[in-house]
């Protein structure tokens, strides 16, 4: 599967082609993001520390990809490079055929915590990316997304008055409001309790199915990756490499009890090197 995706990437024309790739058997969506031979290392006093090595990945438009790995495997670093906050030391990243040179409002990053501004109300936070819009359009969009994430009635509230889950909803609404092509999510649900996490995962899927942005979602939670991702990119630690790309061919909503789900889960644990032998 990873091979096939790379083939698509190789044959893709430079301009974002709406037509399916010629050698694809079915109408595959165009490639949104192409990462080739990407590496990242830091110079230390005596040697260099390699964080990421030889990352090759293609992400299709509208795809939901989870990056799964233990902490310290460089998955957040990879996401920061893709978002343009950090620079790779080798290899290339192209989005829509253009190399990434910096952050871009069309590609929004949702941080694990505190990404929203505590000095601004929910309304002002969600409106952040819409400064150039005419007033009535801005009003319509902000209202829409505050409703969408279930924060109606909290427009004037400040983040400190909200629960962790509600704050993260604000961050998601702020990201969605600019109608981004790509959303990068760096363990956005990591700080929440497990019930809120489940609930927000379901909402995220609902929103993804409605708006179809391309989502790259970093997590260290096997269940989270399996519930959300169309493909799960499993990474190895130090230096971070792609162990395997696992396509999760299960329709949403995914049944936790299905034998197939269990097999996927076992496979992911195996790839992560933690076999649960009970």
């Amino acid at each position, binding site marked *: 599967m990873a091979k096939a995706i790379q083939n698509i990437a190789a044959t893709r024309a430079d301009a974002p082609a709406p037509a399916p790739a010629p050698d694809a058997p079915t109408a595959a969506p165009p490639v949104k993001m192409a990462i080739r031979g990407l590496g990242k290392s830091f110079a230390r006093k005596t040697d260099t520390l390699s964080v990421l090595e030889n990352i090759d990945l293609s992400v299709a438009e509208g795809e939901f990809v989870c990056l799964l790995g233990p902490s310290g495997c460089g998955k957040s670093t990879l996401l920061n490079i893709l*978002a343009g*906050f950090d620079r790779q030391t080798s290899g290339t990243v192209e989005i829509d055929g253009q190399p990434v040179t*910096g*952050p*871009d*409002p069309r*590609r*929004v*990053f949702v*941080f694990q*915590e*505190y*990404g*929203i*501004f*505590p*000095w*601004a109300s929910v309304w002002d936070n969600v409106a*952040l*990316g819409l*400064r150039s819009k005419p007033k009535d359009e801005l009003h319509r969009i902000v209202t829409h997304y505050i409703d969408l994430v279930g924060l109606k009635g909290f427009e004037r509230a*400040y*983040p*400190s*008055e909200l629960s962790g889950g509600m704050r993260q909803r604000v961050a998601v609404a702020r990201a969605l409001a*600019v109608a981004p092509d790509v959303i990068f999510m760096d363990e956005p649900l990591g700080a929440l309790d497990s019930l809120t996490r489940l609930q927000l995962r379901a909402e995220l899927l609902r929103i993804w199915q409605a708006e179809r942005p391309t989502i790259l979602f970093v997590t260290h939670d096997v269940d989270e990756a399996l519930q959300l991702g169309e493909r799960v990119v499993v990474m190895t630690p130090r230096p971070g490499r792609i162990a395997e790309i696992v396509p999760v061919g299960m329709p949403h909503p995914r049944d936790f009890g299905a034998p197939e789900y269990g097999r996927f889960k076992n496979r992911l644990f195996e790839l992560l090197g933690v076999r649960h032998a009970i």
Partner: protein
Amino acid sequence: MNPWPYAVTAAALVAIAAVRRARDPLPGLLLPVATATIFVCAWQVSCELLRYDLKLPDGSVRTIELFPTPGATLVGMWQPIHDGTLLRFAVASVYRVAVGFSLAALIGIPLGLWAGWNLRGAQAINPLIQALRPISPIAWIPLAVLWFGVQDSAAIFLIALSSFFPIVTGSMTAVRTIPLVYVRSARNFRLEGFELFRRVVFPACLPQIVTSLRIALGIAWLVIVAAEMIAVDSGLGYLIMDARNANNYERVVGSMVTIGLIGVGLDFLMRRLERFDEVRWGFSKS
């Protein structure tokens, strides 16, 4: 010996004990008023204990007071209160602090924000500021008098100088410690230039700026008294020096009490600033 301080202390202690047991929130003033009452009683008692009789060579006996009692202080302050001197001098002191402090904030906040945002800026001015900062504002008094003469501007200069350093350092640190996620969010949504400053940098720094203003105002109020003792001929500092020269220690202590009370008032006003929506997030832990 006078029994009232003991009785009042006992009453205050009972009140504190009652507050400890109470479950409902009580008026916030009760505890501080009780401790202040005990302090005044202790003041009275120690005056009585330290008082002694001295036999003079001519055979007469004189009672020596090392410290005026609370009552004597109040009586000693009656005249400056009554003829308006106290009010006039308090206003003079507060006015000088207000002007000097505002000048310092007006220059210090923008300079600190600029230097914090701009690495070169910080490298350029930080060593200089850190070298000038430890010089006590009192050390500047001779120069202030030389430059401005014995008038308001000398005291205002000293206040501006003493509040400037905490404000500029606080604002600079505030910018340097803005969490990376806010800067990245701002860059992600392409906030630049003035808009970046208005929507992210300034609001992110505001709580720390308010804290530095509060510290600076405290220092300014400390310095004004010292400055007025030498550099001008009005104000609460001058009132102390004037009373000392007249050997009127009731008035010295009374002026000290006045300075303390106004200091509490100024700090109260600064604390009110921390309640605004724009900065409250930086103070309340939730």
